[in-house]
C-alpha cells in the first residue's frame, strides 16, 4: 500500500505544490489537505508547507495555528504521527507549541533567498533517518522571519537532548540562536525546519537533490513501523 503524506494548504500557503512534488519524487502519494477540513483523510504523515499563510499578518503562523485542520494535526502529532513543518510550517508548529521557541525577523531585516549549507545533527528523527549525523547538505533557504530564538535553558535542553536537527554552516543567514536551522520534539516525530528541502529534489531546479532525504526518511519510518 502506498504511503500517504498529507500537505496542508492554508490561505497564503505557497510551497504546497512543491512539497507535494517532493513527496511524489520520494515515492509516496501526496494528499492535499485543506485548512478548514478537520479530516486528515487517512494520511500517514503531514507536511506543513512554506509560504505566507494569512499574509504572515499578526505573527507568522499565528492565525493558521487556529485552523480546524491543526486541531487534528496537533492531536495526532501528540500520538506520534510524523509532522514536518517547513519555513512557515515551522512557524505554525512553534505557534502551536508542538515545538519550543519562536521564529523572528532576520537580523539583517531583509528577506533572504540563498543556497544554504546545513549540517544534519540528528539523523534519528522520523524525517532525517536517511541522512547520517554530521552529513553536510545544500538546500535553498528563503525567509524574512527565520531567526530561531528561545530562552537559554530551552536552548540548553535542546542541545542536551539532541533535538537540534540541523544547523547552518558557513553563514548564519538570519541570526538564529546557536545556528539552529531545525529542531524536533522529544519523540522525534515532529520536525520544524527553516530551509526548504522540497526545493532541492531535482537537479534541474535546485542547487542539489540533497533535500529528498527528508521525504524518503519518513517513508522508511512508516514502512518499518
Amino acid at each position, binding site marked *: 500500500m502506498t504511503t500517504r503524506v498529507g500537505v496542508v494548504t492554508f490561505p*497564503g500557503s505557497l510551497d504546497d505544490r*512543491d512539497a507535494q*512534488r517532493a513527496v511524489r519524487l520520494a515515492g509516496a502519494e501526496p494528499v492535499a489537505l485543506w485548512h478548514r477540513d478537520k479530516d486528515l483523510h487517512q494520511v500517514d504523515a503531514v507536511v506543513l508547507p512554506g509560504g*505566507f499563510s494569512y499574509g504572515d499578518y499578526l505573527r507568522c503562523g499565528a492565525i493558521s495555528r487556529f485552523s480546524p485542520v491543526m486541531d487534528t494535526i496537533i492531536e495526532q502529532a501528540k500520538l506520534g504521527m510524523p509532522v514536518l513543518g517547513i519555513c512557515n510550517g515551522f512557524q505554525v508548529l512553534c505557534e502551536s507549541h508542538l515545538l519550543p521557541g519562536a521564529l523572528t525577523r532576520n537580523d539583517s531585516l531583509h*528577506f533572504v*533567498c*540563498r543556497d544554504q549549507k546545513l549540517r544534519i545533527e540528528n539523523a534519528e528523527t522520523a524525517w532525517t533517518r536517511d541522512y547520517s549525523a554530521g552529513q553536510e547538505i545544500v538546500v*535553498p533557504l*528563503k525567509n*524574512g522571519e527565520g531567526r530561531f530564538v528561545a530562552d537559554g535553558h530551552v536552548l540548553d535542553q535542546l542541545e542536551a537532548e539532541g533535538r537540534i536537527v540541523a544547523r547552518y554552516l558557513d553563514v548564519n543567514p538570519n541570526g538564529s540562536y546557536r545556528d539552529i536551522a531545525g529542531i524536533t520534539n522529544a519523540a522525534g516525530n515532529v520536525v520544524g525546519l527553516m530551509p526548504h528541502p522540497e526545493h532541492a529534489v531535482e537537479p534541474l531546479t535546485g542547487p542539489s537533490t540533497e533535500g529528498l532525504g527528508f521525504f524518503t526518511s519518513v517513508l522508511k519510518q512508516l514502512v518499518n513501523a
Partner: protein
Amino acid sequence: MTLDTVKNAEQTPEAEQPWSELGLKADEYAKIREILGRRPTGAELAMYSVMWSEHCSYKSSKVHLKQFGEKKPDSDAMLVGIGENAGVVDVGQGYAVTFKVESHNHPSYIEPYQGAATGIGGIVRDILAMGARPVAVMDPLRFGAADHPDTRRVLPGIVAGIGGYGNCLGLPNIGGEVVFDSCYQGNPLVNALCVGVMKHEDIHLAQASGTGNKVILYGARTGGDGIGGVSVLASETFDATGPAKRPAVQVGDPFQEKLLIESTLEIFAEKLVLGIQDLGGAGLSCATSELASAGSGGMRIELDTVPLRDNTLSPEEILMSESQERMCAIVEPGKVARFLEICEKWDVIATVIGEVTEGERLEIFWHGELVVDVPPRSVAHDGPTYNRPYARPSWQDALQADAPTAERLLRPSTGEELKAALLAVAGSPNQASKSWITDQYDRYVIGNTVLATPEDSGMIRIDEETNLGVSVATDGNGRFTKLDPYTGAQLALAEAYRNVAAGGAKPLAVSDCLNFGSPEDPDVMWQFAEATRGLADACLVLGTPVTGGNVSLYNQTGDTAIHPTPVVAVLGVIDDVTRRTPIGFAEEGQLVYLLGDTADELGGSAWSQVAHNHLGGLPPKVDLERERLLGDILIAASRDGMIDAAHDLSDGGLAQALVESCLKGGNGARLIVPTGLDPFVFLFSESAGRAIVSIPRSEELRFNDMCGARGLPATRIGVVDGDSLEIQGQFTVSLAELTDAHTGVIEALLA
C-alpha cells in the same frame, strides 16, 4: 450634498464643472458634451477625465504605437494580440503563454515600498485576467546615481516592496535589470513583468455579452485609494465643506491577491466566467466601460452595492477608486451561486453589482437614481488622439559628434591599465553583482525555475512531463537610446533576443515598456517617434511581434527628461529545458569562442561612463540579420549539446562577460587577443551581435562546421582553466580579485 443625476444634468446645462482641474482640455470637455447631448454628470465627468487621460487613453502615443500592428511580422504563435490585458502566444503542446511589462514609476517615487508592491500586484492581475496562472515575475529598474542620498531612500524601499509583495504571492522573481544613472534621480523607473501559462482553451477576454448575465465584483473592498484628483469633484461641485481626506498612495495586500489568484483559477477551471477584467488604473470606470465596450455594449450597474471600506465615498469616488486586489467578472445567472461559493471558500468577498443589458448604454445607478448614462465605447476606446509635434533636437548632432575616439578619451594601453579598467567596470554599480537585491526575492517557489538572475534570461519549466519551458529577458539601454533613439530601441530588442537565445530558447514575441519624458516637448516626442519606429522595424525583421505593453510619459524633473528608455521584453520557448545553456564556465578545459564581429564601438559604453563619465557619439551598429543568425546558432548548439555555457556580450563588452562567466562557473580562463584586434577594443567594445560560448573539445569541429556553413564568424579566443582570468601578454587577474571587485558594491552603497 446633492446627487448630480442625469436628470439634474439635463436640467442644469450651465452648471460650472471642474473639467480643467480634472485634466481635461476645453475641446475635450466640449466633445463629451457633444457625445452626451448635454453636460456630463459629475460621475460621467470623472469617468471621461480619467479614461481620456494620457495614462489610460495613450492619446499622445497611439499614432506611433499603431506601427506595431501595421508592421507586425507574420507569426503563427500569436493567439491574442495588442488591445487585451496582455498578448497571448502559442508555445506548443496545447500551451499558451501570456506576458506583459508595465510601469509603476511615479507611485514608486512617492512611496517606494507600496508603489513597487502595487506595481507587481497590477501586472499579475493583468496576466490572471487572461485566464493564465501567473508563474514568474521580473522587474527592470532604473535609479538615480548609486551614491546619491535619495537613492538610499528609493532603492531599498522599492526592492523591499517588490520582494514583500512578490514573495508573499508565491511567484519566483527570475530576472530583470538594475541600472543607475543620474538622469533617473527624480524619476526612478519601476517596470514590472509577469508571465502566465494556460491551455489554449482557457484564454479569457475582457468582454461582457449576453443580456441578463451578471456583473460580479470580487476581491478587496473599495476604499478611497488613488482618487486624489477626483476629490475636486466631491469638494467643488457637491460639498462646500472641503475635500474629504483621500490617500494618494495605494496600499497593496499580497495575501488578498494570492486568494484572488487561487479563487480565480478555480473559477476558470469550472468555466464559470464569460469575460473578466482586473481593476487597475481608473478602477471600476475602466473595468465596466471596457467590458461593455468590448462586448455587446449594454450594462447596468448598481453602484451602491459595491462593498466599501469607507462608507463616506461618493459615487464619483467609487467609480475612480484604484483600490488594489479587485476583479470584475461576467457570469451567467445559473453559475453565480457556484462562483460565490468558490469565493467564499477562499475568503474573498464577491458581490453581484449589475448585469449585461440590451442596447448599447452603460447605465450606473446610485440608490435607484441614474448617475451615468453613456455609450461605453466613447469612454473606453474613442478617447482623443493627438498628433504631437516632434522634431530632431537641436543638440542631437553635437551629442553624436562627441564620439569617444582614442584621440578624445584616453584609453588604457598597458596590461596594468587594462586590468585596472576591467576591475573598475566590473566593480561599477551598473556592472557589479546585484545579489544584494536579487537575494531579497524568492526565485525557487513553485519549483520550476530553471534559470534566474544573474543568468542571461529567466527560464521556467511549464510541463514537468515533457520539459517544455519558456524564457524571458528584459533589456533597455537609455544611454544608447539617447545617442540615437531609433538604433537604441533596436539594440534593446537585439539584446533581449540574444539573451533568450543564449539560454537556448527560441524568441517568439515582444512586450515593451516605453519610458519617456513629456510628450509636450518636441525633443522627447521625436525620441518617442524614433524609438517606436526602430522597434517596430526591428520586430518585423526578427519575426517577433509586439503583443502588448505600456507607455509611461512625463518622466522628467522640471524641463529635464530622463534618457529615453524603451525596455524590451522578449519571450522564448524551449522544447526541453534540460538542454538550457547557463552562463557559467563550469568545465575546465573547455574552449572559449567569441561569436560575431568586434569593431571599435565605444559610444555610450559602460567603459566610457565608468572611466570618463562620458556620453557621446553613436551607439553600436545593429545588424538584425546577424542577430537572428547568432540566435539560430546558439539555439541549435544548445539543442544538440555542442556548448556548455553561453553569455551574451553587451554592457561592459567581452571583459564584463568573462568576469561573469568565470565567477558564476568558479573557473578562470586563459585568453589570447585575436591578431589584428586592439586589446582594449577586444575587451571593452560593445559591438552588438556577439556572444561567448564554452565548447567541449569533442564538439569543436562540429561547432566550427556549423558556424562556417551558416557564415557566422567564430573565433577561438581561449580555454577555461585555473583560478584566474589571463589575457595573454597583457595581464592576469585572480578570481579572488574579481570577486572582491564585483561583489559587495551595492550593499556598501545602500545597506
